[in-house]
């Protein structure tokens, strides 16, 4: 049994980047005008 990715709780996890630099390509594409600000935890 191997832990590939360690889980986080509801209390942790922060925005990965500032401003409009969406940290995931997939994030941006879901917004009609590509202004989907990254709010990944």
């Amino acid at each position, binding site marked *: 049994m191997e832990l590939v990715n360690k889980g986080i709780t509801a209390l942790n996890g922060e925005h*990965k980047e500032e401003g409009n630099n969406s940290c995931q390509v997939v994030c941006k594409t879901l917004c009609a005008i590509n202004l989907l600000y990254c709010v990944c935890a």
Partner: protein
Amino acid sequence: MAAAYKTSRFNVWHESKDKILLYNTFTTGLLKLGGGHAEKIKQVMADPEKTDILSKDEMSLIVDNGFLLDASIDELEMVKYRYYRGVFDNKRLTLTIIPTTDCNFACPYCFEQNKSHQRLTDTDIDEIKKYLSRELREIKPEAFAYSLYGGEPLLCMDIIEKVSYEISAICRDLGIKREKDYILTNGYLLTERMAERMLKANIGRLQISIDGNMAEHNTTRRLKNGAGTFREVLNAIYVSEKYFSQVDVRINTNKGNYPGVAELIEKEPIFRSPKVSISIGNLRQYMGGEMERQEDTDCFTGKEHQQIQQAIYDIIKRTGGKDFKLEDRSHAFYTKLNYCGADQQKTVFIGPGGAIYKCAERTDPGEEVGHIKDGMIVPNARFWEWFQNNPFRDGTCSSCIYLPICMGGCPSARERLKIPNDEICGYWEQWLVKKLERC
């Protein structure tokens, strides 16, 4: 007495010939299991009272990563907690300025149907200055950049220069580093001369939309007189790649124009540039108001949208471009606080007349959530309603195993279409399947 456990409602099993994975969409915990272990874990998941068949270390992994949890905890409450952490995050301001609501294009799918053509006035700029000074003094970010949106912002470069000058002065006074600003433009006016003006106005990153090859693009992205814009827009992408550090090319696609999109990407070398990122949007004809959502049969579902994106990224990689899958960089697995900035209190669009909006798709007259007065936001009824528009109001989302990755889809679509939203549902499920396959 031993603790009572229950199985997380966010566990996802992924089994293939060579591996068995257990993933939790809320915690992002991921376990790779051998056959024997997988059987034991499945037994415990089916009957959480059987935890005694697991060793202490196994039990610790299962509980610490959220696959099994205290039976008295309501997991939806934890998702809500994370959501509201995002909503009320005060640490960053995401500001977009709309210098004009006018546009030189008349795209049939444009959602800005009822715009009156206004520009920011000097009074509006004074209000923006007051608002921003106060916010930045409070937040004290290390660096600041904003976005420009329209209408077509390059129709009023003079206003952009004025706004940029004022914002740079505020940052200088407060000791805040100025980062390069971002602009969304249709590209029609973006010549080399314009690029030089933009650079001087601190614009260093941009997005341009192109909707496939010449035939397809000229069908949807037209001037008001009906003339096509393909040559000018393609030229603008090449100019931007020369002048700017980040060029996002937005390609809106549906079942109808997809062949033309694939042809454009195969043919044009610009799409192999490391400075150029491509984002594949879902072309939604019904947004232009000429048809109902259910009549728009060319629109991709969420799952199809994800598959089309993968297909286009495969074309780029095969033809010598970058590997977009690797660009899903630091977090191989991730979860969300909110779907997007529109769900956050510190995301603000400011337009002519000091009007405040929450989302770029919701900037028609009557969609203001307030206005600025003396540098302060004065909310109206829509402001308070906007924050009630959350994914937990809908049973489909509240009971969905992918809720922590998706967070309910586009808030604008939620409001406009009422969920469930076909264009989003299935997208993140497909995304996760692809991620797990690559593990």
